[in-house]
Structures are given as C-alpha cells and as structure tokens.
C-alpha cells in the first residue's frame, strides 16, 4: 500500500525518468557540447584580464587567495568558472525541462501516475552529472595543454571525486529552482537571479577572503562555495588538503535537506494547481 512497500516500483520509475531525459539529451547533444565549450572558452579573457591587473598581489599557493603566478591564476579562475558554468547549466536545464513538460502537456500526464514526483525533480540529474564530469575533464585538458599547468594524477582524481560528491547537491538545488519556476509560472527570472547570486557569493572569480565579511559569511553557507573551495584546495595542495569526511557529510546532508524541501514545495505547488485547475496550463 504505502510508499515503502512500493519502493522498488518508485525506483524503477525514477530510472525510467532518467532514461527518458538521457534519450533526449543524446538526441540533442548540444547540452554536452555546451558543457565542454563554455567553461573552457569563457575564462580565457578573465585570466588575461586578471594577469594584467594584479601585478603584485598576494603571493599564494593556496586556494584561498588570488595567486600571482600566471599558471596558478589560470587554475584558480578556471575552477571557479567550472563550477559557475556547471551550476548555470543545471539551473537553466532543470527549469527548461519542467516548463517544457508543462507546455507539452506531459507534466499533466506524468502527474496522472502513482510514481513519486522525484521522477520530475531528478530525472535530469544523471545528464547533469555527466555534463559536470565533461566540463571538469575539458577544464583539466585546457589547463594542462593551454596553460602548461602541472596537475598530479592524484589531484585530478580527487577533483573528480569532488565533482561526483557535489553533483547530487547541485542537482537538488537545480530541482528546487525548477520547482519554483514551474509553479510561479515564470521561465527565466528566478533562475537568472540564482545565477547572479551564485556568481556574487560563491567565490567563483575571487576568493572569499577579499569579499566584505557579510558577503563571505553568506558565501560560506552555500554548497557551490564548498565545491569550488574543495576543488582549489585539492589542485593547489593535493588531496590531503581537503577534509573529505566533513565535505561529504555537508554535501550529502544538504542534498537530502534540499531534496526534501523541493519535494515538499512540489507537493504544495501540485496541490495548489489541483485546486485552481492550472496544472496543465501553458
């Protein structure tokens, strides 16, 4: 009867939803092309700009200050843009997927099913994880081949682990944004705000240390910040520079919390739509 005894059925529904999104992404691989091109191309100008303007900055070989050495500067900025562009892609794709389903009417038919609404919230997650991995690999290649960075294999692998750990949490953030967009019946506004805030607070282009302390405080609470910090620490200082237990617990904890919140928000929105008759609207 209850959701617990049907767990495997819900799990299969979730797999089917992931398969559906995967099939669409495979048919329109531009999302993967974007995931490779965007974080490789965008930072170039920022790297040169920063090189020109910093001159004698704080000497740094850690992730928490702006490095003056030009290779390190490139690594620093590229890792920031990696997380920034990944997050941007997650937010837009999730919202676009849900809003698209609503317009297409398939949201309504999906809601006719007894399966958990996680299918709608997390169907896209595997695709988004793959885009993150592709972005990461592309960035590593760009740094090694374009900027002559020396990246130890252990650091590269540890960075991959950060991506893997952060993926579900960022996907949950995207699901929350998508849910809000869906039920507020707006397509872009909220997502743009979320993207702007993340660039402001998460230290993608500048270390938290140079931000006003109130902004840094906010930044420290945000999972994308932890992600980018962990990546920089790992690249600059090696895998041992990261407290893996703490990072995993934090990320998994927020993943669960945000997922639960999104699910509750979705249920509330669905219930409101069931009252007003607006679930199927365009």
């Amino acid at each position, binding site marked *: *009867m209850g*959701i617990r005894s*049907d767990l495997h*059925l819900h799990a*299969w*529904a979730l*797999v*089917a*939803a992931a*398969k*559906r999104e995967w*099939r*669409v992404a495979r*048919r*329109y691989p531009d999302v993967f092309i974007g995931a490779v091109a965007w974080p490789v191309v965008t930072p170039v100008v920022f790297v040169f700009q920063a090189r020109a303007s910093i001159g004698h900055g704080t000497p740094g070989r850690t992730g928490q200050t702006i490095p003056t050495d030009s290779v390190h500067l490139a690594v620093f900025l590229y890792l920031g843009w990696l997380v920034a562009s990944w997050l941007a892609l997650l937010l837009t794709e999730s919202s676009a997927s849900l809003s698209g*389903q609503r317009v*297409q*009417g*398939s949201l*309504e*038919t*999906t*809601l*006719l*099913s*007894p*399966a958990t609404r996680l*299918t709608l919230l997390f169907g896209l997650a595997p695709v988004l994880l793959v885009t993150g991995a592709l972005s990461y690999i592309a960035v590593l290649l760009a740094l090694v081949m374009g900027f002559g960075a020396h990246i130890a294999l252990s650091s590269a692998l540890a960075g991959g682990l950060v991506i893997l750990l952060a993926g579900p949490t960022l996907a949950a953030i995207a699901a929350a944004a998508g849910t809000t967009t869906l039920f507020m019946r707006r397509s872009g506004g909220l997502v743009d705000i979320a993207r702007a805030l993340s660039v402001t607070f998460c230290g993608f282009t500048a270390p938290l240390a140079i931000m006003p302390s109130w902004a840094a405080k906010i930044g420290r609470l945000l999972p994308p910040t932890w992600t980018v910090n962990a990546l920089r620490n790992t690249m600059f200082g090696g895998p041992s520079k990261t407290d893996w237990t703490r990072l995993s617990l934090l990320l998994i904890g927020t993943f669960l919390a945000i997922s639960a919140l999104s699910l509750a928000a979705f249920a509330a929105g669905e*219930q409101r739509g*069931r*009252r*007003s*008759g607006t*679930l*199927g609207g365009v």
Partner: protein
Amino acid sequence: MTEPGRTGVLDGHQGSSAPHRESMLAIEDVAKDYLRGRRTLVQRLRGAPDQRAVVHAVDEVSLAVDRGEVVGMLGPNGAGKSTLVKIIATLLVPTRGSVRVCDVDVLAHPRQARRHLGVMLAGDRGVYWKLTGRENLEYFAALHFVPSSQIRRRVGEALEEVRLTGSADEYVERYSTGMRQRLNLARALIHEPEVLLLDEPTSGLDPVSGAEFRRIVRGLRQRGAAVLIATHDLAEAEDLCDRIAVLDRGRIAFQGSVDEAKTLVPGSSVLTVEVEGGDQDTAEVAAWLSAHFRVGLVERHERSVRARLYCESTSDLMAELPGKLHAAGLRAIRTEAGRVSLTDVFFSITDRRAGGGHGHPQ
C-alpha cells in the same frame, strides 16, 4: 443498445444514485467552483475585496460506472465534462463531493486511485514529442508500475492495439494529430487499468481509426473495465455506450440508456425537411416551422431552411406536409425520413434548459 438485465434508471441529477452493483467508479454530489478573473498581489496586500466571479463548472453531479460498462458523457462546450474527468483523474480537487475508484477514495488516497485509472485527456498533448512512440510508452509503463520484465511485451501489445507498430520508432513530433491521439490512448491503456476516462478520444481520428477505437473500447468492456467517455460524437456514443449522461452547465440533465434518452424527444420518428420560401426571410420560415411542427435542430441556409420534424409516423407527416407548406407559401425541396438519434436528444435536453429559440410545442 442496452444490455439485457440492465435497468438504467432515469434518476436525473437527484443524487445518491450510486447503485449497489459493482460500481468501479462512483461519483457523489461532486461540485467544482472555479474563480474567474484575477486578484493581483497589490489587491491582496491592500486587502481589497475579492471581485473574482465564481464559476460553477460542475454542480452536484452524481454518476456511477459499473464493471464492464461504457458510459458516455455528452454536453455542450463548457458543460463541465473535462472538469469532471480531471476531478476523477486526481488532477483537480473538487469543491465538494466524493469520488471513489475501485473503492478507493480519490480525495483521500489519490496515489492509490491512480493505479486503477487510465486517463486520456482531451487533445493530442501529453506525450513527449522528442521521444519515439515506443520510448514514450516504455516511460509511462514504468511510471505506472508495470513490472520491468513485462514492459517490452505490454508496449508491443499496446502499439499493436492502436496500430502504431509501424511508426513505433518514429519521433512523436513527426506523428500526425490522429497518431498522437492513438499514442495517447495506448498510454492510457499501458498498465491495463480497471477504470478508463477518455476525454474526446476520437476528435482527431479518421473514420477507420474511429472504428478501431470502438473495437478497442468494446474489448475493454469485455475485459470488465469501466469506461467513461466524454464526447461530442453522438453517433459514436449511441453505438458504443450502455448509458449516457448529459451534462449541461455543470449539472446532469439526463442519465440513462440511449433508448430512455430518446423518449425525451417529442416523437419517435424524424422527418428532415428542407424548405424554400421564395422571397420569405429564412428567419420567418424557421419561426413558422417551429410554430406548426414539433421541431428539433433548425439550420438556416442562404435560401432555405432545414429542420428536423418529430412525429409518430413519417408517412402521415409526409402526406400532410405539402398541403400545409403550400398554404404558407412554402415548398419542400427535400425530405428524408429517419429515426430519432442522440442528436435529437442532445438538442432537446440542452436547448430546453437554455430556454432556447427553437422550442417545440408540447
């Protein structure tokens, strides 16, 4: 039309009709009020009075569909058919009333109720255009808890049933409207539900596909499913349905067998006549016909008026018609004898309630 042993009760909308047979779907005193208009955030914050109008889309409707029964829901545009379908389908919460599907309270346990329901919403929306027909069905089968070992077989069967096997691996965006609608039907059938709700299932289908659809529905009836069909195709309803319910402005205006429905028409036969009145205005001709005969649907053409005249014997009427017409300066240019159809029922129920312009003397 009516199956033996079935005693469709002419209970109109006076409630508590849920019979003690095996009702797979039982709706009792269901009402849905919509708010029409807007209430802006500013108005809310100011606490300005709510000026939205209440629309009674569905009003105190009671209806039951038994095992192995096909019920047709008819009614003019905006009568509330789709609203009722969505209420049963758990997509809408009614303002009042109760809905039970296979003895599951839809309002209290929507998730459980959805397992028994197969729903086809109006139009050809609802499937994923960027996937193939087969991929769509595989996805929805999993969503509806078809065991993974059976999905392939079920999808194959469903595709075969709606004759889409040949286009199964085409992208849905390349389907025609009718193909998408058939895919939607397959989607509704994929988990072999006990209760089917079909909202205008044949609106985009060609005659052959329409016949295929009726074959499928008869198969469902044989299997013991309960089927509720909202449709504007009265011939189809007459052909397919064990019972009909006519909805008008949210209320059930009639509920019973097709034969019972036909007793509402003032006459057992119909003579369709096309009358020409020389210089006379067609409006006058129509009025004259309404005054002198029991008329149903009247259509004014450019120079003539076509009307359905009710009578007990078409031969008697045909005998007296030319004289009567001649006296009024009119001439019948075509006559055709026929039987009372659901179109006449539809007209007489909905028109009478609307207090409409073609009223027939009774």
